[in-house]
């Protein structure tokens, strides 16, 4: 087994997911079976092969820096689970 339940727990923490014990056990089994299938990639010689992160060779697409209309504060906040004084509201971040 490549991934232990402890590693799964660590990955869940990185991903900001809170797993139940049942989920942790199930994901450990399933992720291991998926990762095992991935092992075959190691057979391929990729030395000197450039990585492809994108299908279209474009980079640094820029636009003119011109002021334009954007969402109003009301529109930006209309879907927020919590807001106050034109700000998004979250639990305390700094003590």
């Amino acid at each position, binding site marked *: 087994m490549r*991934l232990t339940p402890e590693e*799964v727990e660590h*990955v*869940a923490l*990185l*991903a*900001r*997911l*809170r*797993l139940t014990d049942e*989920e942790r056990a199930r*994901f450990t089994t*399933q*992720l291991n*079976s*998926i990762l095992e*299938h*991935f092992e*075959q*990639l*190691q057979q*391929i010689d*990729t030395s000197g*092969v*450039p*990585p*492809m*992160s*994108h*299908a*279209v060779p*474009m980079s640094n*697409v820029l*636009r003119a820096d011109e002021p334009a209309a954007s*969402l109003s504060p009301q*529109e*930006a906040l*209309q*879907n*927020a*689970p*919590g807001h106050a004084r034109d700000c*998004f509201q*979250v*639990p*305390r*971040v700094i003590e």
Partner: protein
Amino acid sequence: MSGDSKLCELTAHELSHLLGSGEVSAREALAAVYERIDEAEAGIHAYVLLTPEVAEAQAREIDERRARKEHLPPLAGVPLALKDIYCTKGIPTTCCSRILEGFVPPYDAHVVEQCRRNGLVLVGKTNMDEFAMGSSTENSAFGVTRNPWDLERVPGGSSGGSAAAMAGSEAIVAMGTDTGGSIRQPASFCGVVGLKPTYGRVSRYGVIAFASSLDQVGPITKDVRDSALMLNLLAGHDPRDSTSIDAPTPDYTAALIPDAKGLRIGLVTEFMEYQGRRVDAEVDEAVLAVIERFRQLGAECEEVSLPHLNYSIPVYYIIAPAEASSNLARYDGVQYGYRSPDDGGDIIDMYSRTRDEGFGAEVKRRIMLGTYALSAGYYDAYYLKATQVRTLIRRDFDRAFEQFDVLVGATSPTVAFRLGEKTDDPLAMYLSDVCTIPVNMGGLPGMSIPCGFSADGLPIGLQLVGKPLGEETLLRAAYAFEQSTDYHRRRAHPIAERNGRRTAVGRA
């Protein structure tokens, strides 16, 4: 027309003709669609939201403009089903996830703007796998969609609602999205036409992101002409999507010639056999018959091997989850959507509870997979390696296109499978996209069109793949084959009662 009940079964170009001549009004067409929905939706569940008030206002406006003799775009008044992944201003958009329940976008996606501008009428938002992650539409937070050809079977996914809406005549045209086959595989399972344009051909502005280097939007329609008509209004440069390609947009309907003279068509070995496993016998037979038909239509056909396609499943299931784990970090209960009522008074706790309660199992699984593949110590072995093999896959395609104009093969190794058949085995589910995934890897345009039916009456799909921005040749090949068959004229009738239970009955 033999009564309103048939109006819903028309293609967009057929309906457009009747609308233009004044034989049918946009309101009548819409009423026929809603009537079919009333009859069939309890069995199919293609939609997660119907928008009759919006639709009726749009249809009325089109009828009034036509009465004033205004010149209207070709698809004005045509009822449209939209996958619930497109942001619609003032209309809830959920991506079929609990985490976006209640979200009402303050703006329209580019595709939605284009559809509004062209007078299409929004029937509703269709069901999908949560965040487009799935191949059966069983991962929706709002229930499964059933295949109109057999209600015990899946419609495919992730755009299963849109494909089922087409097969069940619950709209005239539909829109889907395709990251690894999510337009083509459900189109194949539902016996309709799905087009994934070249990566960058259509703007994704306002489309909820899954894997940004692979996602592309496109139409699901009842025939190839409708596909070309939809691409005419979708394609083009949009500065709001920085991956949008600035290239001229032809009239795609001009490419629809009913012969294949001079076309060089390659049958891709790896679309018929993955790591030594052959596609199902009925699929195999149907696709091989297509090759014979193409020869009769004047094409030159040969088999071609693209060996690195044998690695597309691992490559895809590293790259797509890696990108998804980053894209889905935005769902944190702060700016929109769901927030756990139990925030523990701590922000990290609030994030984690919100995401655990808001995301479904497959989404969590992929976020975990992607986070792991990108994490320190594993990045080179997984993500970097996968992106290098992606280069090799694209090179295989480039080499094949030196020799061929269009590549073909199966869209999926099987016909539509039974509900629940693969839900406990993620890897088995992933393998149903084995033929479609490589096309997203290469950023190439791809289509699925019906090419036969199994002994059980289930549709079989043919996949066609074109060169980058080669949609015209792709559409020509698809059209030539389609016009030599009657598969595109068959409609499922999922409301008929047989042996006392709801079942699907095809009509040739």
